């Protein structure tokens, strides 16, 4: 329905007047129709990036923002034709639902009939027709977010920008709206840029994820790449749970305090081995690569999360669908699956 626009950031850095560097020079291409999620802890520069794309902040001199190759760096936000959804929804309290959705059309001086038709279409799409005469303070959080989405899409923006749109909602609703937003973005084929600190949201929505840390891009990739092949420790630690074991590579194995893991790499060096909880299988003590003692176990219903303390200070998190009831002090062996990562020990965490 809405044709996509490609977005390019060229050497966009941001230094605030007080001298803090919010963003190191960033160059990045977003294809038309793509959903890109900027993910990272607060203060990592993801919101700054979004605001630069929106036109709410300008990049430091030299940085440029291109929409379909056209330089929009100097174009103020009101002329950039972007749709924006805010964490706080930012619905206008002085207008009802319908007036909120119609506001962008009114500002564009769209003829009344055309505007009414489009508002109706948006309300239907977001399933909020029944709420059209409600005042904003009569809406729940989830309803507000639907209105905010309808309002942003109604102007047929070139790019849809979403700034932590689900953060203010409770967990159950967050999941439901996440599914709805995903369906909406696919249906519209619109270029969407989504900022969040929630990795589950990023995994579910992003065609690509940009993980950011301290104003720098830590990794760009599909959700699978980010999860299975984190390119550095920050990404590995930030996404999901990660076990880390230190060891020494020699003769096709990694020797650690807790045991020996098979290793098909070469050379002799100190390394840190990382693997996910689901990448470990619990077995008898004598058959495992690693051995340890059960410290605690949390029964989660479909699976059990077991904390195992190995020799030295190694603490490993294991997830298993085994129905066995693990007891504190029980000795267990652990088989490490093939999907593991190593980083040279010297690399900064």
């Amino acid at each position, binding site marked *: 329905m809405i044709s996509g626009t490609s977005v390019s950031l060229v050497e966009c850095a941001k230094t605030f007047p007080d001298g803090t560097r919010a963003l190191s020079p960033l160059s990045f291409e977003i294809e038309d129709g793509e959903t890109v999620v900027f993910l990272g802890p607060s203060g990592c520069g993801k919101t700054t990036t979004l605001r630069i794309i929106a036109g*709410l902040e300008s990049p430091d001199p030299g940085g440029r923002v291109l929409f379909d190759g056209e330089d929009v760096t100097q174009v103020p*936000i009101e002329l950039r034709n972007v749709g924006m959804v*805010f964490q706080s929804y*930012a619905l206008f309290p*002085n207008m009802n639902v319908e007036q909120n959705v119609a506001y*962008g059309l009114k500002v564009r001086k769209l003829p009344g009939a055309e505007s009414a038709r489009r508002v109706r279409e948006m309300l239907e799409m977001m399933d909020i027709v029944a709420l059209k005469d409600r005042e904003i*303070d009569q809406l729940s*959080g989830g309803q507000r977010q639907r209105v905010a989405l309808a309002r*942003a899409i109604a*102007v047929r923006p070139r790019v849809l920008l979403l700034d932590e749109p689900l953060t203010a909602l409770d967990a159950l609703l967050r999941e439901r709206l996440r599914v709805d937003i995903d369906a909406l973005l696919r249906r519209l084929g619109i270029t969407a840029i989504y900022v969040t600190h929630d990795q589950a949201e990023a995994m579910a929505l992003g065609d690509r994820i940009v993980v950011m840390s301290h104003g720098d891009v830590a990794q760009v990739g599909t959700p699978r790449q980010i999860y299975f092949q984190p390119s550095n420790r920050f990404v590995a630690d930030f996404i999901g749970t990660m076990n880390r074991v230190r060891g020494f590579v020699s003769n096709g194995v990694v020797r650690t305090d807790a045991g020996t893991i098979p290793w098909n790499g070469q050379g002799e060096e100190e390394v840190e081995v990382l693997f996910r909880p689901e990448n470990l299988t619990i077995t008898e003590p004598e058959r495992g690569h690693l051995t340890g003692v059960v410290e605690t176990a949390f029964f989660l219903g479909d699976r059990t999360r077991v904390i195992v303390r190995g020799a030295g200070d190694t603490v490993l998190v294991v997830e298993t669908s085994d129905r066995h009831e693990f007891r504190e002090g029980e000795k267990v062996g652990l088989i490490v699956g093939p999907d593991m990562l190593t980083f040279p020990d010297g690399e900064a965490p």
Partner: protein
Amino acid sequence: MARSRYFAYQLAFTLLVCAFLIVPVCMSVMAGFTNNFFKGITSGFTLRWVFEVWDLYADTIFLSMGIALACLACTIVLGVPAAYVLAKRPGRITRMIEEFLVLPLAVPGLAIALALIISYGQIRGFRLSWTFILVGHVLYTLPFMIRAVLAVLSSTDFRTLEESAASLGATFWQRFFQIVVPNCRSGILAGSLMVVTLSIGEFNLTWMLHTPLTKTLPVGLADSYASMRLEIGSAYTFVFLVMLIPLLMALQIWGQPRAPRKAVAEDDAGVVAARRRESGSQAAR
């Protein structure tokens, strides 16, 4: 909880304070409707004094109302944009501007009036007209309008509202008139009530600025207290109170800028539960 001795003492004290404040008001109202206050109520009830006040001072009442409304218009036109700028750009310069604009509150009205007379008293057309008084009132009431609007602005996230309007294509002026000003309504209302109330009662400045042809209500009151019999002063005070009471009641209701309401709960069951929690916590207090 059994109420202690302390409760009784404090209640008695507070009632005494209340009597100190209210008894003279009642006496004054009574005096305005008795034939001869010196002799007491026995001298009989009359509306004579009220009519006499109307004959003598009706013009002061209208002038006061006119000045109050003009003052209101000025403070809205000047104060709302100023408050917006102060809220929008907090910083050293705006801090200074705010300090400046509230300065007339820290300086006695007498000094301001004197300064105005020294500077503009020579311009006869201005000195003799009611606008001379208006200027004083605007200086004195403007800080209240600014403060009331600022209070609302600082309790709402107007910046995000503006950003969202901008993202929808609204220009600066559209954002100001369609988003910022409508969402300051409660502050403008609270400020307006304050401005009108203060303007109607202003005396310190007005006494110096008025001319025999531009007497406001409080000036007329001072005049009647000094030169008329007690009953007329009382009846005049009564007229003043009658004007004041609706303003005071409105201030009670709308005087506190309201904070924006939170989102309602996700469904009806949630609403009921939330209400129950609320009333529970109130009972606990």
